[in-house]
């Protein structure tokens, strides 16, 4: 516990090394100079210099989401910390473990409106799982270990440690090592066994069950995804996933109905609406998933597995709540299911599947093809086809392209899909891809982007080039903030207020100016060649894929509508008799 004296900065680095941290994403500044000095000349932790602090947090999120390990961020006081706030909020809403070290003005200047002073713990209190202001260098090592524990335990999330500059310089001989037992925060991972039994008996009696799974499965780790596959296949029930949960169950499997929710598939949403038993695993009944609450799956009994008790009964009343870690609960559930099913006749959901196949035949992702203009869906279908056998990771920005990517890319494994689900942060995808590529240097990492979103963190081209990261940016360029334009078309009389992407840069020249490679493609016939060239090019590539400007992302459950009130693709060739017009209200939130 004690011995040699180290400076606060050294204690932080030593503690991070002790915790197995290998990479820090950061940006230096006055209040963290001692920490940067401690990073200098050591080789245990690699520092990745970003071009904006928001990008540092997104890169850490990409790193975390693709590895299962927490991401670590280091920024300076004041603007460094406030720039990180969007990233922290993003990590908060998507439950991503991030440890963010922020510099602070020296202790005696706190509260004096000093240069680059901001009340970082005050500002980040609402967008972190927990935060610390370090007032005593002797506490520093414990706090770093505790922050790591809090960020990664229970429902993961971002933790800020605000460290005044003097604390980084003061010395102490006190250092912790290894795991830490927290005084008050000890989340329960095992689910209540009686509740699990009750859940299984509901499942056994079900005629029309469905699994509804989310990001919690991925956060729980690879064992959770494995157990999920086992129980879904054993029961023979259909499964749908939230945006955050894609990859936990293989998309190619017949039992997978695709994503649910606002831009989910017809079959997934109808199955959710008509089911009699819903097994929600690590998902949180987000408003983008449920649609109008009063009309959400009205006739089902609901089982909800979540490690966060506050997620249960938050928006949707459930019949069997199970507070616990997905992997632990599914393991018990599988055991009980196997024992129970031995005593009962085997399940058959033939009628239920017949109904689902009927919905499937509606082919809700069908789109109008064209020989002249690249349809965004077509570009993604080809991207999926040409990358499916590769070691590939996808990130996205936010908007239409994100939803199309969720619909048309097929994820077979967890941790391969990084997207901003809860906060919907434009500018997330490119820095996240940088974080993924740092963790997986030999993998193919593709950021599916829109021409508007990509400009929100375009400065990170410098970061990617500096570290030789061969990230591929695949821009579906429709010259509009597509999702804003789509809502304006559907809800605001086609008045495209401020949604046109004017004065766009020449993305090819932009890539070149940083030392990357640019590819322009504007004909459907050239899409395959462009994607192949992108994959084969060694370094950073921007593909400027010019797509149909006014394409809408369907199916769509308008905000304020029920799951079975979807707008389906406008299929000109088949006529419009199947199109359901939504007549109710919609709220742009």
């Amino acid at each position, binding site marked *: 516990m004690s011995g040699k004296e180290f400076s606060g900065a050294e204690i932080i680095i030593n503690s991070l090394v002790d915790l197995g941290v290998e990479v820090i994403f950061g940006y230096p500044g006055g209040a963290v100079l001692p920490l940067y000095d401690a990073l200098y000349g050591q080789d245990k932790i690699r520092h990745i210099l970003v071009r904006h602090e928001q990008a540092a947090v997104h890169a850490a999120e990409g790193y975390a989401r693709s590895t299962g390990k927490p991401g670590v961020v280091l920024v300076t006081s004041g603007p460094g910390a406030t720039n990180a706030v969007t990233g922290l909020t993003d990590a908060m809403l998507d439950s991503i473990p991030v440890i963010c070290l922020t510099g602070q003005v020296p202790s005696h200047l706190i509260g004096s409106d000093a240069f680059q002073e901001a009340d970082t713990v005050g500002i980040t209190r609402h967008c972190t799982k927990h935060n610390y202001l370090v007032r005593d260098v002797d506490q520093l090592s414990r706090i770093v270990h505790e922050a790591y524990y809090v960020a990664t335990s*229970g429902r993961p999330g971002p933790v800020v440690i605000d460290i005044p500059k003097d604390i980084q310089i003061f010395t102490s001989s006190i250092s912790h090592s290894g795991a830490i037992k927290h005084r008050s925060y000890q989340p329960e991972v095992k689910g209540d066994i009686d509740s699990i039994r009750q859940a299984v008996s509901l499942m056994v009696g079900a005629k029309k069950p469905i699994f509804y799974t989310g990001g919690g499965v991925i956060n729980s780790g690879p064992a959770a995804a494995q157990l999920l596959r086992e129980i879904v296949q054993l029961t023979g029930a259909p499964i749908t996933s939230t945006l955050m949960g894609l990859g936990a169950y293989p998309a190619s499997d017949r039992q997978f109905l695709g994503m649910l929710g606002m831009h989910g598939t017809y079959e997934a949403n109808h199955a959710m609406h008509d089911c009699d038993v819903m097994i929600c695993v690590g998902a949180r009944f987000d408003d983008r998933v449920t649609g109008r609450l009063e009309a959400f799956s009205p006739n089902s009994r609901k089982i909800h597995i979540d490690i966060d008790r506050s997620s249960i009964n938050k928006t949707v009343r459930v019949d069997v709540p199970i507070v616990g870690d997905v992997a632990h609960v599914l393991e018990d559930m599988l055991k009980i299911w196997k024992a129970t099913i031995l005593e009962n006749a085997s399940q058959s959901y033939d009628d239920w599947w017949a109904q689902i196949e009927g919905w499937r035949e509606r082919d809700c992702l069908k789109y109008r093809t064209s020989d002249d203009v690249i349809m965004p869906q077509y570009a993604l279908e080809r991207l999926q086809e040409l990358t499916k056998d590769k070691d590939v990771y996808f990130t996205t920005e936010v908007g239409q392209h994100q939803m199309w990517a969720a619909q048309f890319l097929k994820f077979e494994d967890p941790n391969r899909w990084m997207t901003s689900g809860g906060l919907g942060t434009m500018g997330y995808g490119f820095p996240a891809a940088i974080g993924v590529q740092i963790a997986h240097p030999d993998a193919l990492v593709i950021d599916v982007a829109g021409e508007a979103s990509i400009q929100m963190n375009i400065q990170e081209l410098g970061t990617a080039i500096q570290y030789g990261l061969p990230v591929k940016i695949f821009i579906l360029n429709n010259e509009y903030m597509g999702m804003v334009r789509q809502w304006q078309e559907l809800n605001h009389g086609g008045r495209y207020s401020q949604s046109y992407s004017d004065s766009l840069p020449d993305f090819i020249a932009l890539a070149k100016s940083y030392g990357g490679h640019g590819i322009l493609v504007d004909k459907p016939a050239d899409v395959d060649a462009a994607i192949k060239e992108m994959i084969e090019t060694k370094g950073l590539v921007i593909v400027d894929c010019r797509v149909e400007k006014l394409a809408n992302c369907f199916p769509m459950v308008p905000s304020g509508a029920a799951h079975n009130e979807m707008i389906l693709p406008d299929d000109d060739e088949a006529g419009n008799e199947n199109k359901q017009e939504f007549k109710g209200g919609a*709220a742009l939130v």
Partner: protein
Amino acid sequence: MYHTHKEIELAERHTLSIIVDNEAGVLARVIGLFSGRGYNIEHLTVAPVDLSGKESRITVVTVGTPHVIEQIKAQLDRLVPVHRVADLTESGPHVERELALIKVHCNNGEQQAALRIAEAFRAKTVDSSFDSYIFEVTGKTEKIRAFIKLMEDAGLVEAVRTGVAALTRGSEGL
């Protein structure tokens, strides 16, 4: 064109006891949760309660529908420095007390009335000048309210209340 969701449950008044680590910012965390998520605080009392000063006890009186009360408890419980959350209203009989100091400025004639009422409420006189008193009164919220109301006609100047402190009845602790 905008859809709004209406709560149909009726609001209830609940007294919550929260044991927290006595660390910097813990009160801001608890209050911030209430303001950030749109919950109500009617009363708030906080002070360290163990002799070492490591833990504080926060008593919150809040008003909300049963669904909201349930959420408040779950949200409080997941704050990192929170050790325990107890709903005294739900867990059965409990004692609630509040302390108030009330200053009155009395003209001739009002003086006798003020002292008579104070005696009836078992209030103590803790300060007195030629034409004023400060009374100290403890009791349930309703009693304090009634006392202040009566003092309005006896030259009430100002009043201050501590907010509710509460414990469950019987031998069991939190």
